[in-house]
């Protein structure tokens, strides 16, 4: 290499180390790279969370439509048969979640009590008793926790 100790180095071959300074050792470079990598991993780890939130936002929209669809079905059939809505209003425990066949990631159930807002003050209209509700959640075959997504009150 161009750092032979017995002759002066040309400008092209010399390392431009400052007098009294020292070059970085391989260990120092590796440590710096590890820190850089740790930062990159942190950023990379954060992005999937954002993607999941995007997905959940889209799913919440779909949940709203499924809830509206089920509520419209109940209203329509109640107009011909009667008693459906009042049967739902009287339910203190919801029906078993049923998979929504056209999009099996979701499940729906009916209840006369809130499932999504059990901890709210009784004065809050969202937890009013005796109001028919459609409750949409993830189907357990898709998300084992069956997370709640949306609750629609209807009459």
């Amino acid at each position, binding site marked *: 290499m161009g*750092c032979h100790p017995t002759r002066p180095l040309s400008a092209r071959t010399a390392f431009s*180390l400052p007098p009294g300074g020292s070059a970085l050792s391989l260990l120092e470079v590796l440590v710096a790279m590890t820190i850089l990598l740790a930062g990159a991993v942190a950023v990379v780890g954060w992005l999937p969370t954002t993607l999941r939130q995007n997905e959940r936002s889209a799913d919440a929209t779909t949940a709203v*439509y499924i809830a509206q*669809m089920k509520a419209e079905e109940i209203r329509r059939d109640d107009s011909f048969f009667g008693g*459906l809505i009042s049967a739902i209003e009287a339910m203190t425990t919801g029906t*078993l979640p049923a998979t929504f066949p056209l999009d099996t990631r979701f499940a729906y159930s009916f209840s006369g009590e809130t499932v999504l807002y059990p901890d709210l003050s009784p004065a809050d209209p969202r937890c009013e008793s005796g109001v028919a509700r459609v409750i949409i959640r993830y189907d357990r075959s898709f998300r084992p926790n069956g997370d709640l997504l949306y609750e629609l009150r209807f009459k």
Partner: protein
Amino acid sequence: MTPNRTQPPVPRLLRRAAATRPLPARGRARIAPARRAFTFLEILVALLVALALLTSVVATFITILNLTAKSDAHLVAVANARAALETISMEIKGAALPFLGLNNPEGLFLGGDGVDNDGDELVDEEQPDGRNDDDGDWADQHAGIGAWAERPDGLGVDDLGDFGVDEDCVFNLDELAFRVAPSSGPDYDVLYRVAEFQGRERVLVRLIDNLSTSPLAYDVLSFNCLYWNPAAAAPAERWAESWSPSLNLPACVAVEITVHADAKPIESYTNGQPVRTVTERSIINIESMIP
């Protein structure tokens, strides 16, 4: 540092000897042995390590970019379909006669989404008609509501909302036209169909009084409507694929909009290739037909 060209060359023997004793100030290299720079091997190792790290970081970054693009396309498609469905739903609620529903299974693009959605090894084998008309995988699906079941007259017959019904359909490009009687303001006629709009294909447009056209959703691959006829002779015949203006209003309309949901342009797909789509659907009652 410029080389000293006037200095005579040092004989090899002297150079060897110089390595064992201190060099005069002018002949000494600027890098002292205690502060030596990288060797060639060290640089190679460092470059290889850096290359390996950078490769993995860049690969991850590209994957994330692709995922983000897909996620964005999905969100845009959802918003697109949702906005269109909102508009259509609001107008259907105020529908009046005449009411026309044209079924158009012929204007298909790619046939369907090219995906076996129901896992029966058949692709896009169903017509979106509210019935199970393909593979006999139908199962009644009704939540029990006390002594009742939802959709009481759907018990024992295939119906929209049951398993196996319209789960792996071809695309349709239906047309829907009716008069709207708003609570305030004059009546007007509205027509929804998928058409070209300002040079762009596959746009769900809203045509008012046959005069003004506005876009509702872009990259629409399927627009399908079903009409609920409460006067049908049998429960299994309640969902109709088309609606004649000679009939009274349907009691409700099922609307389904399928939108392309990928960053990849739709024109680049070939027939049968799986397409990423978003489908939003709703059932809208026509209030005047609901007692």
